[in-house]
């Protein structure tokens, strides 16, 4: 028996995989080695990867089929995962020089990839990919020093989703979301819990464990999470205030408990407590309303987030991007695929607003008359939103800001760490990650 042999083999299997994957990189000096920006006459196989719900997968595969019908020599293989697993997997494929040709990008990760040379400048693909119809406010959110490393394909806005059926059942009026405040939200949630006799809980935990709510809360109070140079500028007192607010809600019974929150996180939009009618409020992005209404069958509506001194603080976030991997052997075909997904009515007919309200202004105009009820809700919500200053994009190195927030927020809600200590830890750790990537 030689257990030490066994253990070394298995203990390092994971690290070993990476080693094998990384070895070619050591010699080839980084990502690259991609193909030329010309179309091929030969059969071409592309890989397209994204994260998201079942509905999204179904629609995307339909759009792929439509694209293949137009380009008989191109075959596209779709790959999709759930958000967290998606990023773990994506980093691995990039390291292995085996990245998908076209990848769905997020605002939190975009700079971590582009600053490290992993993405193609889409300006070079002008022949195949038209950028001119993209909303001029959104387009720059995919640029670094003029290079278009990612194409914003839709915009999303933070929203509260509310189950109007539950309000009807417990005979309460929906709040007026043009004027309501955080105090109103707390009072209404508590009222719901009490009227239902504990049958439901008024609200899920809608803040303090995700980066969106921090941004909204701090922007309402004249503060930003990041500065343009990547530094973490959030004031610790504001984090403390936010966490204490929600601790109060949990304590009073207006919000679910920390345990329920953790359980809900794993359940996804369509299976969570909001969709299954166990809470009446939840935090979503406006375009998730479609999946939510489909998943729950309930009369779900969108509400503007509660106010604070009337300061506009919401932000139009580039919901997601398409990007072409610098390692792609067929960047021209990959760009064609992106063009098809973003700029054609054929694709718009299939995808609608599921990936966010389209960033292509012509497509949006084309879609508006034919939107179904839930898509229209998403668009109306976006139009009704009064955004504050433009958002500072998550800098290189800070792409893990959301998991960090989740972890520290949970520590606070489980009362294992004081809000003060957690706020300090949040800033120190995040700044450390940013500095390490510089």
């Amino acid at each position, binding site marked *: *028996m030689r*257990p*030490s042999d*066994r*253990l*070394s*083999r*298995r*203990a*390092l299997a*994971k*690290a*070993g*995989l*990476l*080693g*094998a994957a*990384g*070895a070619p*990189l*050591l010699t080839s*000096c*980084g*990502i690259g080695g991609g193909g030329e920006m010309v179309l091929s006459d030969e059969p071409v196989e592309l890989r397209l990867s994204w994260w998201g719900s079942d509905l999204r997968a179904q629609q995307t595969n339909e759009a792929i089929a439509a694209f293949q019908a137009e380009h008989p020599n191109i075959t596209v293989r779709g790959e999709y995962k759930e958000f*967290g*697993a998606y*990023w*773990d997997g994506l*980093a*691995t494929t*990039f*390291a292995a020089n085996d990245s998908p040709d076209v990848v769905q990008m997020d605002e939190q990760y975009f700079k*971590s*990839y582009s600053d*490290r*040379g*992993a993405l193609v400048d889409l300006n070079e693909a002008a022949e195949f990919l038209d950028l001119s119809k993209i909303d001029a406010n959104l387009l720059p959110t995919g640029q670094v020093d003029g290079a278009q490393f990612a194409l914003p394909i839709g915009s999303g806005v933070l929203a509260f989703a509310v189950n109007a059926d539950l309000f009807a059942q417990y005979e309460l009026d929906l709040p007026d979301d043009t004027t309501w405040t955080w105090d109103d939200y707390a009072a209404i949630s508590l009222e719901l819990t009490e009227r239902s006799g504990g049958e439901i809980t008024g609200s899920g935990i809608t803040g303090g464990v995700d980066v969106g709510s921090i941004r909204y809360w701090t922007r309402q109070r004249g503060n930003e999470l990041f500065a343009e140079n990547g530094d973490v500028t959030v004031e610790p007192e504001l984090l403390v205030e936010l966490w204490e607010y929600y601790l109060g809600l949990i304590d009073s019974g207006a919000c679910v408990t*920390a*345990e*329920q*929150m*953790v*359980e809900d*996180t*794993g359940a996804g939009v369509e299976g969570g407590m909001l969709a299954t009618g166990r809470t009446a409020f939840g935090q979503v992005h406006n375009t998730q309303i479609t999946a939510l209404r489909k998943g729950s069958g309930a009369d779900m509506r969108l509400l503007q987030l509660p106010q604070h001194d009337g300061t506009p603080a919401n932000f139009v976030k580039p919901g997601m991007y398409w990007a072409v991997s610098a390692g792609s052997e067929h960047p021209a075909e990959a760009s064609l695929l992106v063009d098809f997904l973003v700029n054609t009515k054929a694709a718009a007919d299939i995808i609608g607003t599921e990936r966010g309200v389209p960033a292509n202004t012509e497509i949006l105009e084309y879609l508006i008359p034919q939107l179904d009820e839930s898509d229209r809700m998403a668009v109306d919500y976006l139009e009704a939103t009064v955004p504050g200053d433009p958002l500072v994009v998550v800098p290189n*190195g800070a*792409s*893990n800001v959301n*998991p960090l927030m*989740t*972890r520290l927020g*949970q*520590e606070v809600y*489980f009362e*294992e760490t004081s809000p003060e200590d957690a706020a300090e830890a949040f800033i120190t750790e995040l700044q450390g*990650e940013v500095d*390490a*990537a510089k």
Partner: protein
Amino acid sequence: MTATDELRGLRDSRAKSKPQNKAAFWFLLPWFLGLFAVTLGPMAASLYLSFTKYNLLQPPEFIGFANFERMLTDERLHSSLAVTFTYVLVSVPIQLALALGLAILLDRGIRGLAFYRSVFYLPSLLGASVAIAVLWRTVFGTDGLFNEGLGFLGIEGRGWISDPETALSTLITLNVWTFGSPMVIFLAGLRQIPAMYYEAAAVDGASPLRRFTSVTLPLLTPIIFFNLVLQIIHAFQSFTQAFIVSSGTGGPVDSTLFISLYLYQRGFGNFDMGYASALAWLLLVIIAAFTAINFWASKYWVYYDD
């Protein structure tokens, strides 16, 4: 033919058949390829990477021992080590005790032994799988089977996996549940104990308990030792269960953050593969140390019959 003759014969035949050596080489080649390509090569690469800053997308940059110095002040690492040690030190003894207990019961020669043996062994095959981890999450959820069972007894359950106080216990339970493979080894070990010892003990009037402590246990110590070493190594490497049950976070509140999961997060979540490689080597050293201690301590309690 004496032994010397036999050896001489072997030597002669070896000298005569050089082509056979060649054949052996070709038969061994796939194994060597595997060893170098899948084990030693990547290990060497990860050893190198542990001395670098490597973000997966750009070439690694040599930084000396900085990754290892960083471990001293990394509080999340320290808490993940505490979680890992708790998991190993609690789950392995319970698992082995259960395995031994059942092996002794089954060794009584009950009817349908093969059936029971298979049934008890089944969890060992399934325990580390994704499917079982998913099942576990459902069973121990607030509305899960476990709470329903408690409900019948009039006990109100809780979200066992979503509560930081109990999340690790559910994973320990899962590991204990895979007692089948040590059990099968114990069974084999029990069969090796010569019946004459028991007969002699019975003649001397030893009680069943006395026979267990004075015959069974001492003669079984090599098997216990073997299982102990194996299961400790196995437990240190646990990953899948925590990854699935906590959706990759090691939560709630890092309560299920094994070091294997933490190094995975650093590497793939934070683009921090240099540090992750260093953590992998730390895990290797820890496991090697535990194994060495085990072997050293075995001198004092393991009894070899021969």
